[in-house]
């Protein structure tokens, strides 16, 4: 049963999935939970994957949506009000946004990055290239490539953090900057 292309290919990507699950969560236990959730979903919808298409991308999409969903559920649990609580519970966080809105924000801010940083990030995230292969294609030293990735990701992180803090109105005004 596990000789089929799906299961065989799946094992190739387990290491990478596990590594991402570790980075995304706060404990080894949570990481393992996330990974198992993700794999269960992947196996359950295995018939939807077309052999020959990009299984790694497919698996990582499932990991992303599983992660977002778990995070949302954790936030909902935190907002339930105990009957002994005086007055209102915290509800500190703004409403969590599901994966598509997050993706839209990331894409928006990516466009505002300098081209070198933008390219570096996309080559790894979308083209799934290794550093030396990507650097070679761009005709730059690996060290330069790595520094562009680091600076680009950090710039994105700050921009997205700023997104969270400012109100909805400002968010609408932020888009539309020309890429530099």
């Amino acid at each position, binding site marked *: 049963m596990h000789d089929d292309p799906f299961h065989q290919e799946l094992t190739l990507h387990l290491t*990478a999935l596990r*590594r*991402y699950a*570790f*980075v*995304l*969560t*706060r404990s080894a236990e949570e990481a393992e939970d996330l990974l198992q959730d993700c794999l269960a979903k992947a196996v359950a919808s295995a018939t939807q994957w077309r052999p020959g298409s*990009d299984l790694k*991308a*497919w698996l*990582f*999409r499932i*990991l*992303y*949506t599983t*992660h977002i969903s778990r995070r*949302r*559920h954790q936030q*909902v649990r935190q*907002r*339930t*009000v*105990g*009957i002994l609580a005086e007055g*209102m*519970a*915290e*509800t500190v966080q703004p*409403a969590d*946004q*599901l994966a*598509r*809105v*997050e*993706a*839209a924000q*990331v*894409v*928006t801010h*990516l*466009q505002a990055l300098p081209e070198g940083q933008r390219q570096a*990030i*996309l080559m*790894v*995230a*979308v083209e*799934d290239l*290794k*550093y030396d292969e990507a650097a070679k294609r761009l005709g730059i030293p690996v060290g330069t490539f*790595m*520094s562009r*990735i*680091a600076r680009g*990701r950090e710039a994105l*992180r700050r921009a*997205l953090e700023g997104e969270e803090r400012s109100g*909805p109105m400002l*968010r*609408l005004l932020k888009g539309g900057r020309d890429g530099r």
Partner: protein
Amino acid sequence: MADDMAADGIEDSDLHAFLDGELEPAREAQVRAWLLANPDAHERLACYAEQQLALAAAAAEPAWPTLPAPLIQGLEQALRRSVWRQRLSRVAATVLLLAVGWGANEVLRRPVFAGLPDYAQEAMDAHAVFANDPTRPVEIPGTRPDDIRRWLTTKLGEEVTVPDLRRMGLSLVGARVLGTEEGPAGQLLYEDALGHRMTLSLAPDEGLAPDSPVMEAFHGLEVSMWRSEDFAVAAISSDLPTEMEPLILAVDKALDTASR
């Protein structure tokens, strides 16, 4: 933080390389151990990981946002592809969006379920998390309806009578209160003889609800929304064939009784 990193021999580039699977196993193990001991850096790396996932997903999924498509076009595409379209005609969809007073811009900033009011989305999340929770689905059990009535009235700031849905074959499992951005919302959990459950959510601001009742399907859940006296109501269920009219009548009757 930079000082800690240098002292431990870990550089910022190591963190990125770790995420991208570029490190030799020995080095990877070192960085992993270091991350466990440095939650701030771990958190920062988690942000980078989420960026990567978002970009990879956006690039591969035709239904996901691709920029810079015009906002309106994007909304129409999303509506065409979503489950929504199976239940609501295009005209009715537009009417609903306008009825809840949202412009296209605002709707686009909402999560996946474009057009669903926040209070209904909160109710869906509560249903997903609590309805079939084996340990503690409710705070006060249905065997204490007076306690539930008093508690909800206090928390929600409006007189509440617990709707009696026994004519619909539904008994009360119990109640919970959720804190949301709009304020607290009461969640009443009902179930039928087979254990299929429905969440009835009461948000004490009727203005949040659509002008006329709507029933929609989202990802296997049936969501009914309507405006009652003093409350925006949402009913969420999955395996329960819910007749909207009797449900609305029963709930409105209870809430109306309470407010008199």
